[in-house]
């Protein structure tokens, strides 16, 4: 076992685990760590998932990280944006999205900070978050776990949380996990965010202190470490230039 495993690599393995039960569907992953995780899943336990190049193509062999199909890989399907919406509506897709805010029921915001009429900070807009969360499993990736991101209540619900989904009768709604640089979070039977595991080397109190709503991490197990084979694939095959270290703030050795 390597003794220099980084938080980024632990997060990649956690992202990969998202796809264990996926079967044959389109894996959409926003961000570097989720993109590496989806590739790792495809190369290990979940060969049936379909990767996207982030542009217009479905890939049976992934294009280089962050690059469209024209940079390499093997195209197996055409999925321009309009077809993505058709695929979303079928439910044969999963998405790991980012977030600017997440609340205790998993409501997510990427639209704006402040008031709707005159925001303090305009962000990208709701994009596909309402449709994604209404139609298929959505997981979140948070590179910097902080109390500014995990808030009591989000300024605009872009991705639908468990309380809202229940009220709206969304039967295809499924929030999976939230993977952060400190922990893996899930949801309890009431739809509230709970801690599933804390990454090795992270003080559980740090998770609580950096969350803007009550979150008990004291009895959580440690997040699993990547296997030697996973580490080899991450370091030598998928991300040899270690782009992952740019996304996770402090690549601390923890093994």
């Amino acid at each position, binding site marked *: 076992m390597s003794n220099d495993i980084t938080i980024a690599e632990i997060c990649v393995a956690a992202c990969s685990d998202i796809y264990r039960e996926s079967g044959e569907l389109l894996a959409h992953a926003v961000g570097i760590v989720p993109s590496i995780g989806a590739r790792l899943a495809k190369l290990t336990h979940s060969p049936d998932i379909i990767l996207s190049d982030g*542009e*217009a*193509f479905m890939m049976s062999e992934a294009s280089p990280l962050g690059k*469209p*199909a024209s940079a390499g890989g093997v195209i197996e399907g055409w999925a*321009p*944006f*309009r077809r993505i*919406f058709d695929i*979303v*509506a079928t439910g044969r897709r999963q998405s790991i999205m980012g977030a600017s805010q997440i609340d205790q029921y998993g409501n997510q915001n990427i*639209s*704006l900070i402040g008031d*709707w*009429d*005159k*925001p*303090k*900070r*305009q*962000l*990208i*807009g*709701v*994009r*596909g*978050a*309402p*449709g994604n*969360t*209404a*139609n298929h499993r959505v997981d979140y990736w948070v590179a910097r776990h902080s109390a500014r991101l995990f808030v009591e209540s989000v300024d*605009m*619900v*872009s*991705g*639908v949380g468990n309380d*809202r*989904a229940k*009220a*709206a*009768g*969304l039967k*295809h*709604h499924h929030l999976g996990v939230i993977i952060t640089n400190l922990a893996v979070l899930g949801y309890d039977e009431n739809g509230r965010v709970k801690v599933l595991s804390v990454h090795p080397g992270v003080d559980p109190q740090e998770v609580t202190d950096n969350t803007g709503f009550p979150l008990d991490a004291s009895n959580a197990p440690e997040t699993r470490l990547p296997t030697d084979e996973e580490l080899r694939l991450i370091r030598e095959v998928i991300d040899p230039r270690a782009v992952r270290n740019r996304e996770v703030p402090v690549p601390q050795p923890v093994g």
Partner: protein
Amino acid sequence: MAGKLMDAADLGGLFEDGMTIGIGGWGSRRKPMSLVAALVRSGAKDLRIVSFGGPDVGTLCATGQVREVVHGFVTLDSIAVDPHFAASRQAGSITTTELDESMLVSGLRAAGRRLPFEVTRSGLGSDVLTVNPQIRTITSPYADGQTLVAMPAVPLDLALIHLNRADTLGNGQCLGPDPYVDDLFARAAARTILSAETVLSTRELTANAHPSTLLLNRTMVDHVIEAPGGAHFTACLPDYPRNEELQREYAAAAADPAPWERYRATYLDDESIWRKEAVNA
């Protein structure tokens, strides 16, 4: 069959104050920037812009011509948020109808089909419905009894679209990897202006390209403009990629009036410089 080719200098007469104008492309990809520059030069104001927004929306915010933006996002792709759009929102100087991306697709499709709305699941439970109380839900009349979103049609007075090739009759060809939803914009609009990198004879369009690349037929297009480099600085694959350097200059110009005036004078008052860059690309 009358030819629809017109000169860019005559575009101004097609724009009127208060129009609802749909703009094709997606983010900072294959935007009809030459047509947007003509819209800027026309001085038309109080506009309602419908767009999968990029620098088209940002430009018209910077010139103060926009009253309302109907969008699912406004992004420059390699720069997450268009700073001109953000500045207008943060100043409270424009109103917005913010939609899930697929809801905007539904609204355009409904308009093109002359239907009042399209049913969709997208938007339920989110604040899109809270901030847009004009969007109503509908209950399925069948046994499932589901409550769904009745996304209202988004009809347009005018659609602006840029494609790789066209003929003078208004047949438009997309040679890039993604047609986006440009055909839905054209169908939703009372009139459509199509600019193209190159205008060819009808026969030449399919001499070396599959007929499935013909995205717009001539019933969907009213005016054709030949505009080489007409999507600059956005990407127009396979003819040219995004000009990231020029996009950075555009974004940086949001900081102060002086750099914006310089940008405007260089690239909007006379966009022939883009055409030179397209030729050199």
